[in-house]
């Protein structure tokens, strides 16, 4: 059973976050939204496990 990992899991978290922001630098709101959407799809495909993905959607929805 593959669980959604909700513990810290990204080494160099600050670097990752900076990279994420940098990718959006200078983009219009529209282009940024599109980038986020593409990124989301790339990551979702990499995970590939429907149970994990469903869990992730639920966690994201509950955190607002």
């Amino acid at each position, binding site marked *: 059973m593959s669980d959604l990992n909700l513990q810290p899991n990204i080494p160099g978290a600050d670097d990752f976050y900076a990279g994420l922001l940098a990718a959006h630098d200078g983009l219009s709101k529209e282009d940024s*939204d*599109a980038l986020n*959407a*593409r990124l*989301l*799809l*790339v990551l979702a*495909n990499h995970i590939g496990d429907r149970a994990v993905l469903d869990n992730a959607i639920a966690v994201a929805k509950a955190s607002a």
Partner: protein
Amino acid sequence: MNKIFEVPMYAYSRSPDQDSETPIRRPVVVIGAGPIGLGAAIDLAQQDVPVVVLDDNDKVSFGSRAVCYAKRPLEILDRLGCGQPMVDKGVEWSIGKVFFDERKIFEFDLLPEDGHERPAFINLQQYYFEEYLVNRVTELQAEGKQIEIRGKNKVSAIGAHDNHATLEIDTPEGPYNLEAEWLIACDGARSPTRQMMGLDFVGRVFEDNFLIADVIMEADFPTERWFWFDPPFNKGQSALLHKQPDNVWRIDLQLGWDIDKEEEKKPENVIPRLKAMLGEDVEFELEWVSIYTFQCRRMEKFRHGRVLFAGDSAHQVSPFGARGANSGLQDTDNLAWKLKLVIDGKAPEALLDSYSQERVHGAEENILNSSRSTDFITPKSDMSRILRDAVLDLAETHDFARPLVNAGRLSVPCTYDGSALNMADALDGPECTRPGSPCPDVKLGDDFLLRQLGGEFTLLTIDADAPDLIEEDGIEVTRLALSAKEDTTGALKARYLGDEPSAVYLIRPDQHVAARRPSFDENLFRAAIRRATGKE
């Protein structure tokens, strides 16, 4: 020259039933001579059930509506004796291309598996489809079968009773009454029968309009399905181009919600749109133009006592996926043998409830698929458009995103998983032939499995022994004995055995699997026959 859809095919003529003092009672009356009503009538007449079809019109479909017909309906039409003319006239295709903005982002091939007699898809105008069905009716009449189509017979009132239905019918020579032991309502999405009986039809309307144009042109586009998201000639919307026989091309242009339908339908508005798409110099002629709003909805159940609903009257889908007529023929395929057994007293009336259960299941699957396609093609919110466009952008370079592109999930038959007519699966065999599945075809020498199965209960044995005939409470089941060793293609093994050395299948008249085991067991198969006919 007149188009076939402008010529009366079953002109009104007076029936002796109109002169009867008291209403004549017919075993089966079908309302509607569309593809589904005709399919139902042919199926029943072939089984010697007398049938009368009533239609308020006297012509085939005005203009082509349905154009894509899938493999399973073609197989059903083979059993109805008119698959061949459809395939001969139809245009076969299997390649689809998807464009986004100005770019082709990918193409797909419906790659038909080997060993099927019929192609994955043909395109054919609905008016030809109906014409060939009407021709088949004429052929059956010549063979002495009791089947008639009464043109300009408009049903204006219906009374539903415990053991029959009453009908009031308007004709050019005035009204008359008729009774039916069984009534099959194939009177289309607006079904007057459904309305007159006060029955529900619930679902979703998609707030969008589509211009559907059939144009005649000499063009060298290939015989492929071309689908555009957000093309330069129809900004922010979608478009579809598809070939039909006789140089007729189907074009769908999404128009959006806030439009004036009457204005948009005028040739002076349609032609510039088409020129923007096809090019200024392409010469074409308009055959038929219409504007549709699509819906996905269904009745809660398809049987109401002696009244049975089939086709668009029972369920309606958006056309992305070509699931309308294709699924309607699967309704009548499911219904006709059951009704025949009930009429002959060989099965209880309750068997007809399984028609509703199984085909509601099919309709749900079709509605789910068409709704999802429509949601992809017509995003309902800013975010759904952003996600949709992200999928399309990624699909151009990355394989992974292609399965997410949804320009229509093309019609495939449904498996009646969980049907009350199935036995539990007792074979560790292939998924595609588990109980409830439609039998996949296999080439057998010069013949094909589905032709050999025909339209009766069959005991299919593969490298297994069994009696040549079993009779269980009036139901005769004949054996079809095959050996995987003689099948050099390996398809019989791959589709029906898997890793098992032998198998015995009970196959229903609609060619769906009712039960399967590694070997014959008389008690178990007798039980399976009873179950498949609603007796336990």
